[in-house]
């Protein structure tokens, strides 16, 4: 079976992004103007967006479609993640255009790698079989290794890059081992069915349970090993240990990208795998994810309390939020009614978008606040309320959002997640989540207090922010508040996307 024009149309967003990335990298040969790089990258992302919107309409009219021999599935669920990834990449690139100055003369390579990684993440969201999942995951991961180590003149970024590389290799090994078990037990790679009619994992398991070698044991081992592999990307305890080191060592925009886009796509693939392929299996995945959620958020929050570096703290905050998101996964995998599954999935999708807005705002604010002194200690934030009013305000709003204070999107997102948990009978997990939110207030509000109530120790001059930085701060803060006040629109989109997965 050859490649048809339809196949190309269905991966047009990724194609456009890859072409854009290539053009950006090549443009570096001609000009080192960072404005040019940024404009080209944004152009590529705009085309990507346009294609994704066209696909959304198409899927809306004709239903989900598979491409490339059923290795990719284009449904609204995948498209939602693609929008999120592309939007995040665009904001990260705009916000880092000033920061990228220090990458000279490799600014265009930096931009290109972000775009390549984004393309990998978008494919990951649409991957319909195990092999595609693995390949997309590697495509998304490898550029990040280079990005993390991009500043080669300092030791911390290189350490971050190496750690990320080695641990992602370990986790890939787990993942592949798990996939091997799944394939062995079911005899198929197919996560989502397609036009060819090849049996999916769910169908294979559903029909021939007696034929499964080692009974359900192989499925269980496969699922757990795959969870371990994905756990690395999700920053899930006990696979999270790289997170703070890499967030602290890597350039700040890379941290922002890792915390948002990368996490969104990883959650998407976990939801797809466990809902579509393993949803029918008899094992109780809900308890696994509920336990992991509780452990992940508790450890993330407790360790965050004692941190003194803002970026490292955001790393632990990312771990804690992985825990909150896992509440949604636990709710989805609980055996319940169909509608509740859709509610659980949509709550995860909603929170991914809201979390992206809050985390991006926090990282972008940190970019502005640390760009002159390079001092990332929380103490160095003292007096920033006066020195950099906009960035401090944005960081305050973002941190209040991450705590889950209304009227931010963080509150609404947590409300939906906890609600999904309660509806799935996981009341205890919602309680653990709520208690964790209280704990998190301690260190989030601590930063706000330092910024507004402490006097700066030394330098008290204003910290200026470039236009690009201010723009992204305004956008993300507006998103946090607007989605907090009017969550209805996004929630509706998330519901539509979730129903794509359910049906």
């Amino acid at each position: 079976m050859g490649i048809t024009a339809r196949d190309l149309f269905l991966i047009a967003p990724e194609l456009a992004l890859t072409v854009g990335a290539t053009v950006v990298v090549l443009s570096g040969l001609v000009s080192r103007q960072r404005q040019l790089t940024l404009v080209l990258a944004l152009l590529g992302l705009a085309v990507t967006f346009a294609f994704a919107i066209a696909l959304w309409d198409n899927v809306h009219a004709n239903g989900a479609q598979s491409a490339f021999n059923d290795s990719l599935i284009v449904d609204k669920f995948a498209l939602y993640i693609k929008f999120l990834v592309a939007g995040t990449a665009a904001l990260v690139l705009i916000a880092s255009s000033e920061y990228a100055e220090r990458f000279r003369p490799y600014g265009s390579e930096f931009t290109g790698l972000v775009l390549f990684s984004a393309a990998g993440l978008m494919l990951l969201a649409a991957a319909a079989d195990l092999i595609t999942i693995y390949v997309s995951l590697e495509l998304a991961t490898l550029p990040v290794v280079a990005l993390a180590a991009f500043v080669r003149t300092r030791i911390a970024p290189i350490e971050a890059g190496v750690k990320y590389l080695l641990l992602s290799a370990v986790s890939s090994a787990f993942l592949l081992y798990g996939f091997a078990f799944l394939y062995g037990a079911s005899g198929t790679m197919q996560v989502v069915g397609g036009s060819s009619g090849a049996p999916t994992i769910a169908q294979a398991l559903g029909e021939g349970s007696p034929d499964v070698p080692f009974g359900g044991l192989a499925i269980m081992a496969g699922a757990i090993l795959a969870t371990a592999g994905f756990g690395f990307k999700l920053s899930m305890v006990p696979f999270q240990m790289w997170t703070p080191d890499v967030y602290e060592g890597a350039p700040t925009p890379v941290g922002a990208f890792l915390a948002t886009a990368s996490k969104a796509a990883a959650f998407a693939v976990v939801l797809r795998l466990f809902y579509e392929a393993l949803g029918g299996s008899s094992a109780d995945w809900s308890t696994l994810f509920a336990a992991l959620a509780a452990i992940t958020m508790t450890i993330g929050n407790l360790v965050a309390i004692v941190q003194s570096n803002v970026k490292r703290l955001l790393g632990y905050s990312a771990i804690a939020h992985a825990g909150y998101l896992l509440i949604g996964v636990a709710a989805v995998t609980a055996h319940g009614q169909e509608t509740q599954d859709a509610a659980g999935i949509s709550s995860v999708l909603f929170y991914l978008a809201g979390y992206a807005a809050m985390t991006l705002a926090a990282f972008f604010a940190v970019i502005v606040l640390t760009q002159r002194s390079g001092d990332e200690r929380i103490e160095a934030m003292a007096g920033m309320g006066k020195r950099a009013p906009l960035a401090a305000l944005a960081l305050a709003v973002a941190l209040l959002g991450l705590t889950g204070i209304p009227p931010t999107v963080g509150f609404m997102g947590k409300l939906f997640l906890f609600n999904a948990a309660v509806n799935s009978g996981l009341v205890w997990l919602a309680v653990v989540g709520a208690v964790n939110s209280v704990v998190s207030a301690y260190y989030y509000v601590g930063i706000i207090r330092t910024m507004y109530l402490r006097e700066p120790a030394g330098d008290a001059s204003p910290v200026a922010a470039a236009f690009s930085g201010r723009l992204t701060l305004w956008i993300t803060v507006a998103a946090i508040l607007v989605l907090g006040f009017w969550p209805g629109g996004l929630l509706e989109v998330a519901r539509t996307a979730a129903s794509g997965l359910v049906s």
Partner: protein
Amino acid sequence: MLPEAAAWLIIGLPLLAGVFSIAVLRPWRRSLWRYAGHVGIAGTGAAFVLSLIAVNGAMGNGDAGYEPHAWFAVGALGAQDGFEMTVGIFLDPLSAIMAAVVSGVSMVVQVFSLGYMRKESDDANGEWSDYPRYFTYMSLFTASMLGLVLAYNLIQLFVFWELVGLFSYLLIGFWYHRPAAAAAAKKAFIVTRIGDFGFMLGILYLFLNRGEFTALGLNPFEIPAILDAAPMLSAGVATWVALGLFAGAAGKSAQFPLHTWLPDAMEGPTPVSSLIHAATMVAAGVFLVARLFGLFEESAAAMNTVAIIGGFTAVFAAAMGLAANDIKRVLAFSTVSQLGYMFLALGVGAPGVAMFHLFNHAFFKCLLFLGAGSVHHSVHTFDMRYMGGIRRWMPITYLTTLVGGLSLAGIFPLAGFWSKDEILTTAWSGSHAANSGVSQLVFWLALAAAFMTAFYVFRLIIMAFHDDFRGGIDSVPHEERIPDEAHHHVHRHESPLVMKLPLLVLAVFAVGSGFVANSLVDLGPVPAHWFSHLLHEDAPKFNIAIALTSTLVAVAGIGLAVLVYGTRTVSFDGLGRLWRFVHRLLVQRFYMDALYEDLIVRRALYRGLFLVSDWFDRRIVDGVADLAGWLGRNSGRAIAQLQTGHIQVYGVGVSMGAAVILIFYLMQR
């Protein structure tokens, strides 16, 4: 019919005016501060015009049912545990009339304030510095009040209800540097909050019983839905929700036993007292009950409570008004008493009559307050003992106040007569009341209140305007003066035109609003009983016997006041100890403030409950919190020990993690 966007503008324009004054004028345009008032008047005036169009539209085809807009939803819609929050505009004749009254009176008061606040702020520091702040509060208050009136959803209404409370707090404490004003603002906020707590409990009770609504396919918080569902609700739900809402209404409308804040609220600028504590905000409670009357109607207990509290307050407050010497306090007690009248009317089943009285009362009470402000403008004191004879140099103020006083006393054919008569007739007939005995009882209470009302208002007029001048601020002992006003002197002059004009406009309404709006016969363009029919209600049949009785009672009250304070042919002093005891009781306001503040708050709460709570909070609550914090920090530190930075450790962590999970699942099999 008004398009929906225009209906939103009724709220939006005053809001915009307020935001403009505080966010643009105040920080950026010092030279234009003097025009802050004009901005506010423009915004409120535009809202007034829109409200009039809305009233006109409501006359034609009844209710303007705008569809509400979804705000957010929680849980699965239609399911037992799901509910949707909606916002919208509910523009029916009731809210249209109320919006017109609020915006109209607010506009007139702001015009008056142009003159009144000019002097007040000018004297303070020779600038216009108070102007933007004052008119911002005024505009935002008006916007909140209009938002309350037009709310579609009970929670939406509650939000605006609280905003109204906030701006009332800010305006009472406008002169925040005066301790009395700051204390009064706090008191108003806290006492109304007690009522609001009841309001909130009512909302929560509604929420807990939302199943009864979802079974009917209705949203439990939408006001029209509540009215539709009211007959189908179980009795307990209707009663408890209605009583909760009434607690909120009683707080806002200063009904017994939550009345103590209103007299103190007179510490605010006089136009504020006039707008907020006479004409509009305190009427919000009456409006709330009228708005949800369909719900109250379903519960005899709630109706009787409303009637009895209203009737009792009418007499109780009027009695305190008999002995007060501060002109604004007399008017404040009068307001409480008149609001009691309105609740009484609601309680005997006549929301249209109550709204009619609210409508008339807004004009004449606003007029009386502005008259008091005008007097203060000249003599710089509110104490009637130092006034007298002012009519000689303030003829316009005198005449308009006289008109307002006659209207309040209920003298034929002024506005107050008509609505008071309707209330008395309804109470007497008891045909709509839940309990005819209650209805009879409150009739006699209302009649007694009418007598006292006529007496105290003419006591006020005679003491302030007749007789000889007793020196104004110049005679007030220094220790009794408000520090800010210590340097003021009496200026024997009539107030400027911007102050006289509102008085005259309001005087016209105080004469005509009753007869013209709800006439017994057709009056050319205005059909008979226009007001009642607009609210889809039949006016009570005119009863000549009751009309004569109430007029006689009022004339008797006026006559007694003239005999005691005018000709001094009658004196109470002969009554001896009993009189002195009663007088002291009235001056001390039945010791209610003392009971609340000294006995309950200082003794019982401060020395009892609060001490215990304080100990519990310090030792137990803080102790647990400290322990939790200590545990959190130290366990965090302990776990952070694992984070060595060595990648080998991380790899081991990953492998061990996967192994532990696997083993766990294996063991379960």
